[in-house]
């Protein structure tokens, strides 16, 4: 696969016009991670919706086209899903979402940074609200 295939219109579009980019005024979940190797940074915020779903989600950060496009596309995919869905998201899902680009080991980290932040935030929230896991409103 050539780099022309990696940097398809889809990835460039999400890099230059990232969906769900910004900050939420009110949120229940917040997470941040960075890649010390290249300095990519991603922040994510989630407002939990009805039935433990991802009500609103925004991300911000700086980085390469792959890391930012991946984080942005992931927020679109996640919106409206159950928080539990995040547990099942895999590397393969992210690669598929990006159009299965052929990435070297150092660039794979860029592609997965958004997923790592999403999981860090949601897992932390689910752990803290473990006893409410019967489907009732965790904030009640």
């Amino acid at each position, binding site marked *: 696969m*050539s*780099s*022309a295939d*990696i*940097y398809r219109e889809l990835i*460039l579009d999400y890099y*230059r016009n990232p969906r769900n980019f910004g900050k939420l005024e009110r949120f229940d979940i917040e997470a941040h991670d960075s890649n010390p*190797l*290249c*300095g*990519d940074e991603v922040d994510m915020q989630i407002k939990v919706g009805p039935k433990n779903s991802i009500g609103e989600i925004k991300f911000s950060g*700086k*980085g*390469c*086209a*792959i890391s930012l496009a991946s984080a942005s596309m992931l927020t679109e995919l996640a919106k409206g899903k159950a928080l539990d869905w995040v547990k099942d998201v895999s590397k393969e899902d992210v690669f598929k979402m990006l159009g299965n680009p052929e990435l*070297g080991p150092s*660039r794979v980290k*860029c592609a997965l940074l958004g997923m790592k932040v999403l999981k860090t935030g949601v897992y932390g929230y689910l752990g803290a609200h473990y006893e409410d896991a019967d489907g009732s409103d965790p904030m009640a």
Partner: protein
Amino acid sequence: MLETETLDVERIRADFPILRRKVRGKRLVYLDNAATTQKPRQVIEALDDYYSRYNSNVHRSVHTLGEEATEAYEASRKKTATFIGATPKELVFVRGTTEATNLVRFAWGEKFVKKGDLVLTTMMEHHSNIVPWQLLCKNKGATLKFVGLNPDCTLDLASFEGLLKEGPRLVAFTHCSNVLGTINDVSALCAKAATAGATTIVDGAQAVPHMAVDVGSLGCDFYAFSGHKMLGPTGIGGLYGRRALLEEMEPFHGGGEMIREVFLDHSTWNDVPYKFEAGTVNIADSIGLGAAVDYLTALGMDKVREHEVRLLKYALSELAKVKGFRHYGPEDPSKKGGVLSFNMADVHPHDLATILDEEGIAIRSGHHCAQPLMRWLDVSATSRASFHVYNSHDDVDALRAGLEKAGAIFRL
């Protein structure tokens, strides 16, 4: 297109086996020399020769192999010291520049820096000339301050002189910036620092490989450099220290080799530089570094410098034609080392490096271990192409073509 006439690049290239390999089916265009340089066969053979013929520990074995190894190790120290204008007793072998600055932090700093003291470094430093001083200052209750930069990416002398008035104990700065390429006027800065009563340490990691260095005329107290950036092996480098300073310093690591006598309650130290070389030293790589010094000496460091200035000049004029190209550093090639940091419109350096890799072109992308400088430049990262003796105008042409391809992919 005028090929540079100062060095016989074709002949030099033939000495570097790695330059014959293909990367992704393309000729390797290696432009990451500020990170590490490639090694000529003369260096690789010196390592092989040591391990195949006279591998042995140094200084304590009286058998033939031990004496040969000791002789080669000390010959290498002499060559390396001469290369930077020092005497062998003033050259401590270390792992590299980072170990050299840390050695000064512990062996000199722990003894001579006191609570309330001031240490100066600059905004253009590599982390290896910032973090050891942060740690030292934190431990000692001293203060670390940073000399600022001018908009043209040179050191702000007004800021430097202003801070000198505060009477710093130590002044640390780079000879040549690994990001901007800025060459500092080391002898002028050291003279001013000495007048202010400060001890000086200079990071020469990007200078020793690229230009003639004479620590005597520079007038610094300490000077640090790495072997692997000057065609030598990894894991070996040098710390020059003024003899009197080395004598009054405490040891760095304790153990074998660095002692004169050991008793149950105390020990006495070996002479310099052995006082700072505890344990079995890196014999093979020191010998490899000696071979690299021979190689560079044969080429002539003035010619190496001239070659790089020509390449820089050509690169700056060619790359300026690429859409969206923005260079960070002094524009005058004669005031700059062979390092070219840049960005291309909104293309992130990691994306650019991925696209160039597909063309067989190796550049560096990221913060280059200089995060305070990245913040000063107001960028999160840059791309960096850096040259050495085997690079040619063809490599610059390949880089330009690669950047144009990246521009097309990113629809600039």
